[in-house]
Structures are given as C-alpha cells and as structure tokens.
C-alpha cells in the first residue's frame, strides 16, 4: 500500500509540475532545435494593436496590457536565419523586399517560416503589407546586417508611432475633419504629417512617395482665392456633374478633371509601378479607401490637403 501511495503521489506531482517543463523542453529542443545547426532561429510575432512585428513573446498573459514595439533584428554577415512568423490577432503579411523575403502570409494560430542568408551588410526595411487595422501602416522595422566584428549599425529612426488618441472633431468643419481623418487613418505614415511625402518606397518608379501639400497646384488652382472658391463649393456639397453656372476659376474643366482623378485615387487606390521590372514589388501601396471613407470624408481630406499649400505673399 505504501508503495502504491508514493507512486500515485509522484504521478500527481509529475502531471501538475513536470508536464509544463516537458512541454517547454520539447519546444526548445525538438521544435526550435529541428532546424539545421548553425541557423539563427528568430520568432517574430505580429501585433495589430500598435502595429508591430515584435521579438517579445506574446501570449494571453501580456497581450492586453503590454505595448509591443517594432523589432530591430540584428544579424551578422553570413548568418543563416530562420524567421518564424506568428500572428497574435489578425491576418498579416511580412515583406522585406531588399532581402527578398516574402511576402509571407501570416495567419493567426499557425506558424510559418522563411529562411534566408544575410550576405551583405546593410539596413533593410521590412513591412506588413496586408491591411490589418488602424495601425497597419506603422507596422515596419529594420533588419540590420553588420559585417563581422563591427558594431551594429544604427538604422534610421522610423519617425512615427501609431497614436490612436486623436480627438474626434465635429464633422461640420471640413478642414479639421479632413485633418483628423488624415492622421487617424495613418495617411501621415507615408505622406508625411504635413503632406510633405518623401518616404522611400523601394523599387517604386518615383523612388519616393510624392508630396501632397502641393495639391492645390496639382489641381490647377493657381491663386489662393480660387482655392477658396473651390473649397466653398465642396463645403456646399455642390454637384459638379450638374452645375448651373461655372465658377470664377480659370480652366475649371481641367480643375474638375484633376479633382476627380485625386478622389478616384483615394477611392480605388493605386498600384505603384516598379522602377525595375525584374525587381521586387514596391512595399508601400496606395490602398483603396472606398469601404472605409464616405464621399464627404474624401472631400474633407482633399480640402485639408488644399489648405496645406503655402502661398507666396505677392504684395508687390
């Protein structure tokens, strides 16, 4: 009887305490250890909230309170690397065009891997290219490959982080409403907080994302007063298809054509053409906003961008 009792007690302790240890051991040595020797195994977890590919372990104990920051992955030249991707929430897509990794579809609940060799020192930007939520456009970071024996390079800071605390202004004022949408929907992550553009887009035919603070010029509105007239028409929700009399804006037909083109660009998005046809797909793409923005919203954003134009004082 004594022997049975001891055996039984031990088996209880084993199942309550040792089982978790066995699980951990199995994971470390059989799952992570299954890759060929000498490879660096890195697990990247995608978090939509805040927008990050993180090296932290994300699970039920920390997801709801911790802020996860985009990871900088430091490697040495010649490293053989296995990236294990895990999504903690929705569908993501990992893409690092310059290192030729991906796009890797990352479904939650299922690990996918990508292997590569870090051959050349440098800093390489990676992205999420599947619209995963409000912070999607901030979901970028760096893979830094350093020559052997060198200290790791500091990559250029990715200026903005996903803030979602913008105060909602009244919808009535199109300029503030447009600005709010422009910030909240993360347009600023590519087009700049003042519409200055300039963010690099790898293998994009224009190299950089074009500026939008010159939208007035692009719409052929050459005078401040013309912008005011046009904005006033937008505010009055004038039906441009059915105008009673043409406004006092020169080349108004051209203005209208450009305006419609700009709005279609927001509505349907735009595929960014490759500079080098054999090269990688540019990672940053103008997405289609028709499902997320109303007609009024799009006009508000256009109004806001028109107001960004800096007019030169011509008082002479």
């Amino acid at each position: 009887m004594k022997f049975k009792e001891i055996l039984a007690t031990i088996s209880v302790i084993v199942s309550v305490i040792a089982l978790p240890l066995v699980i951990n051991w199995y994971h470390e040595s059989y799952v992570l250890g299954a890759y060929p020797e000498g490879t660096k195994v890195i697990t990247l977890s995608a978090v939509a909230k805040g927008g990050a590919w993180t090296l932290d372990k994300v699970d039920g104990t920390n997801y709801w309170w911790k802020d996860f920051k985009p990871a900088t992955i430091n490697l040495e030249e010649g490293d053989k690397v296995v990236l294990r991707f895990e999504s903690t929430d929705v569908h993501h897509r990992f893409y690092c065009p310059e290192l030729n990794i991906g796009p890797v579809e990352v479904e939650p609940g299922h690990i996918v891997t990508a292997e590569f060799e870090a051959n050349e020192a440098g800093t390489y930007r990676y992205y999420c290219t599947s619209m995963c939520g409000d912070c999607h456009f901030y979901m970028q970071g760096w893979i830094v490959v350093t020559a052997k024996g060198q200290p790791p390079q500091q990559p250029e800071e990715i200026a903005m982080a996903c803030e979602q605390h913008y105060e909602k202004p009244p919808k009535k004022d199109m300029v503030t409403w447009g600005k709010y949408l422009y910030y909240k929907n993360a347009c600023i992550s590519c087009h700049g907080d003042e519409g200055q553009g300039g963010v690099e887009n790898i293998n994009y035919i224009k190299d950089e994302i074009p500026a939008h603070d010159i939208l007035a010029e692009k719409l052929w509105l050459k005078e401040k007063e013309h912008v005011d007239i046009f904005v006033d028409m937008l505010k009055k929700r004038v039906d441009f298809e059915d105008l009673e009399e043409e406004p006092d804006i020169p080349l108004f037909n051209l203005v209208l054509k450009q305006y419609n083109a700009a709005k279609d660009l927001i509505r349907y998005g735009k595929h960014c053409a490759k500079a080098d046809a054999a090269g990688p797909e540019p990672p940053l793409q103008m997405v289609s906003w028709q499902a997320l923005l109303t007609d009024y919203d799009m006009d508000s954003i256009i109004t806001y961008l028109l107001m960004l134009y800096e007019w030169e004082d011509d008082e002479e």
Partner: protein
Amino acid sequence: MIRRVFIAILVISVCVGIPILIEWSTTGNPETKNIHMELFRYGTTPSIIRANRGDELIFTFSASNTGHSFLLQDYRIEVKVSPASEKVEVRDPLQSSYENIIDTDKVHLTAGLEGWWGKLVSLSRFRCHIYCGPMHGFEQGDLIVRPNWLFSGSLGLLVAIIIIAFLRVRWSSENEPKLIPPPIDLNKKLPILDKILKWRPLQFVVTLPVLAGFVLVIIAGFFGTKVGGRNFGVMLTWSVWMALLTMILVPLGGRIWCLVCPLPALGEYLQRGATVQVRKAKKEGKYGNRFFGFGFRWPRKLSGTWLRLLFFLGMGTLSASMAGQPKWTATALFSLFIIAIIMSLIWNLRSFCMYICPVAAFISLYSPFGRIVVRSRDTEICGNCRERACLRGNEKGWACPYELCVPNIKRNFDCGVCTECFKSCPYDNVTLGLRRGRWTERFASYGQAWQAIVLLVLGMVYPLTILSPWTVMRDMVNVIDKATWLEFGKYAAVLWTIALGVVPLLFWLATRFGMLLSANKEKKQNIRTSGIFSAVTGDVFKKTMPALLPLGLSFWATFFIATVMINLTFIIFSISDPFGHGWDLLGTAGMPWVQVWPSGIPWIQATLVLTGLTFSLKKGYQVWFNETGRKNDALKGFAPTATILILLAAGMLIYFTNF
C-alpha cells in the same frame, strides 16, 4: 395495432404534406438579384440573404476594419475581401492548395444546390475564414433558399406530434399501472466490473490522465495562441468536453464525469492526505476516516442548489467571451480549481461539488437520463445496517464525499459515482445498476425546479446569441473584446430577469391554471382560496418541472452538435499543435479547415428539438397522470405547461430552419 400505425402515418403525411404544398406553391420564380455584402467585425450586412431556388445572385463585397472572408462551404466558394482593395479573391474552400484563385469584383452564384440532397438544403451558413478577432468564429450569416422543405416540413411534423400524442392518450387504457423493472445489477452480471469498482486506485487511475489534460488546457489557455480555434485549451473545453457531456456522458452515464473530474481532485488528495489509500480515524467520531483541514460543515443557509445555479448562470452569461479568448477560459477553469482546493481544506468532504461547482449544476440536473445508477442491492440489509460505512467511511473506503447513505439514493442528482461505497460496504450491498424503463426522478426543492428552467433558457440563449446570424445578438455577449459593458449589462439584466423571474413565473402560472382546469368544483374552490403562490401549487409545480429536462437537453445538444461539426478539423489540428507554437505532433497541423456536413446541421437540430419535445410532452403527461389519476384531467392539467413547451420548441424550430 396496424390501424393505429396507419392512422399515425396518415396524420404525419397530412400534417407534413400540407405545409410543404403551401411552401411549394408560394415560392416565386427565379430572378436576378444584386447583393452587396459589407463585412465587418463581427458580421455582415445583410446577414440573411433570402432567395428562391434558381435565382441568379450577383455579389459585390466590401470590408471595413480588417480582412474578412465570405465562406459558403455548401456552394464551394470562399471570397477573400480586403478593406484595402475593391477586388476580391475567389477560391474553392474544399481544395487545400491556394491555386486557382480568381481575382474579380463580382461573384455569381445560382441559389440552390445540385443533387437530391442539394434539393433538400435550404439553409446554407456562410462564415468568415480570415481570423479577425476573438469573436471571429461566430461571424456568420445565412443564405436561405425557398422552397424551404425543412422549415415547412418540421413545423408540420410538430403539429403531427401533438396530434399523435393526443391519440396515444386516447388509445391508452385508464388504469394500467406501468411497472418499472428494477435496474440490471451490473456487478452480478459482470464480475470483472465488480472487481474494478472495488479496486482501490480506480478513481485515482481514471482521474490522473484527465488531470494531466486539465494542466495542458490551463497552459494552452494562458500561454498558447490567442486564436480560439487553434488553441487546445479552448477546443478541448468548449468543443470536446462540453459536447461530450451534453451529448454522450450525461445522457448515457448521468454523473459519470464526476468520477474523473480533475477540478476537486487535488483538493481531495490534500483533504484526505492520500491519493489511493484510506486513512482510518484514530478514534471513532463522525467519520470512520481521518481528514486534514478544518472540516467545517458548509453553512446551512448556503446549501442547496441555488449557489451553483447562480455560478452557472454567471459563467453562462460570460461564456461567449470565454470561448473566444483562451485566457478567459483558462482563468475560469483555474479559478474553479483553486476554489476547490481552498474549500476542501476549510469545509468537509466535497463541499465544492455539492454547493459551488457550476458544472455540477448542469450534470446533476440532467443526470436522470443517465442509464448508470448507484443503488443498494437489498434494502433489508441496509435497514439492519448499523455501521453505515458508506456514509461514514471505514478502513476500506472513504466516507461518501457527497454525504449520502446508499439506501437513501433514489435519484441520480446527488451521487457523483466516486465508487467509495462499493469498497466500504461490509455487506457487498452496493450495485452499479443499468436502468431499464423510464426515469422517475422528482425534484426535491424549488432550487432544482429553477435549475431546470434556467438551463432550458440558457439552452435557447446559446444558439440565439453565439450561433446567431444577427450581429446585434453577438455584440451583446461579446463584452470582453468590445468592452461594451453597458450593452452587456443590459443583456445580463434581461437574461437574469427572464431566466430567474419571468419564465419561472410563466411555468408557475401555467401549473396553477392547469390545476384549476383539471380539478372538480370542490377542489377548484380549495385551490382558489389557497392563493397563487401557495405551497399546494408549488408542490405540483415541482412535480411538473422535470418535464422540461428532455427539451432543455435537446436545446443544449443543438448548440454543441453544431459546434462540433463546425470545429472538428480545428480540434484535430489543435491536438497536433496545442499552443499554436508551430508543433506538429500528429502531422495534421497544416490541414485546411473544413466543416463536417454543414448543410446537415439544421436537419439534425430540427430532429433534436422535435425529439426533445416529444419526450418532454410524454414526461409531463406521466407526471400529471400520476397526480390526477385520470386521462382527461391529466391532459387538461398539463395543457398550459405543454403549450409553453410547444411554443418554445416551435420558436427554436423556426429559428434553426429559417434564420
């Protein structure tokens, strides 16, 4: 006899035939319909698409917030919709490869499936197959194609069942006392079973693997993937365990789960200071065994079934959030585990199981269906017994953890089949019986009557919220994800008022109305003067409420059969990769998700509801026949309660087949 069968068949043919003819003749001609589907967290607009067989449906799609998909497995179509693009990707969900994806902006579909079975399918459920948040698994809607044979036919069958029930009562003879045969003595029949039941380590040996599984569930819940469908903890708890309980363990084995339950196990080992052996008390006291801990008696005021019923209702209210988020499933189970340990050190025996355990509220209530019963073999031996070793324990077996004395066990509700009494009885007078004939359990307290009502209500609420095509219903229960505490508060308040107040009141009034209908003039006066909430009414009310059990359990089964059929492949790969950490133990982690026969689900659900109703009506009539002694009086007396049950069943039938 042949005449009766013939009449029954005639009734069924007419009752089912007429609605089917009406349905057939009122269905319009095929036409072309344009449908724009807006997909969001968590649902679609429109959520129910109605069409006629042969309609040409032209779908366009848009998604807000994140990527979603429109998966209509019956039609072998999955449409991936991204908020960032006006184009959608279309593929065949039954093909595992991601080849043959078509990029398009419009999707054409002809309403109605091919083949003989396809012609019978009206309700096809569409779901989202791109994980979009904790309630993703419940993002669903319906394509309903007329003529809807199941809808019209099952309502017709419901009417037929009522008519046949009446006829059967007419055909039955008035005074024919039905003898219920005693249970088969399994210990005598199967000597090996007798040995096993008396084997000391039995409970320990069967509990241990379940305990290990429980530890895995907790680890998976806290540290595994957040995706419910890929998390072993969520899948095992909600799709395997609860489904097993509802559809197999309780209906066949009664409280057999309590034998292997891991929740109180650790606490019990500590309380006994033993796992497999027995400790004899040093000096004779209340118990023949020695226990550790304070061993207080559970406060009288808190005893009964009320407390665990409230716990069950509480957990039931939150269950959608728990099932959607592994960490909440783990938190709930782990808390119960800890509470059980603490309680076993403060109070005596299995106080946790008797008064707190919410699962016991479910298992105990529906345990009369169980065919396996623990009873005494010869009542005379028990009558002469002085030691009462089953209740007090001795050197061979522990005192009954449920404070029962075997001769007093007449019902399945209280006994947790721990098998200690088989060991302790010095006269070998305890048997494991196999019940024959119908069950005869009665409710001893109002607590149990309320339990039957609350579980009936929850059995309807689950399909109506979690399996609902309506987004509003799902949003109400989805509190943890959306933090809509105000909405949830309203929902909880309404649910609790209905379950604990409104529905019990309805059944109470129905009972009283039935009493008045069935009584003669003299008795009527007595009933009237006794007041609405008198003990006289209460007594009959308690006797009638067991009639709710079959229908209640069938509602629960409708929910879990759907859950299992939808999630079966998820269960298989969550076993292969329990934590979503990239394991592949069985080589099945990468298999695609396929629902098992989704077009059959409404058919099974309708069958379950009708079966449950049939047995409920039978039970209720038996109770009233015993009460009044006359066929007509029994019919009159049960009629009001039966009406409520029929209306509830009809409502759920309409919901399952046409929404």
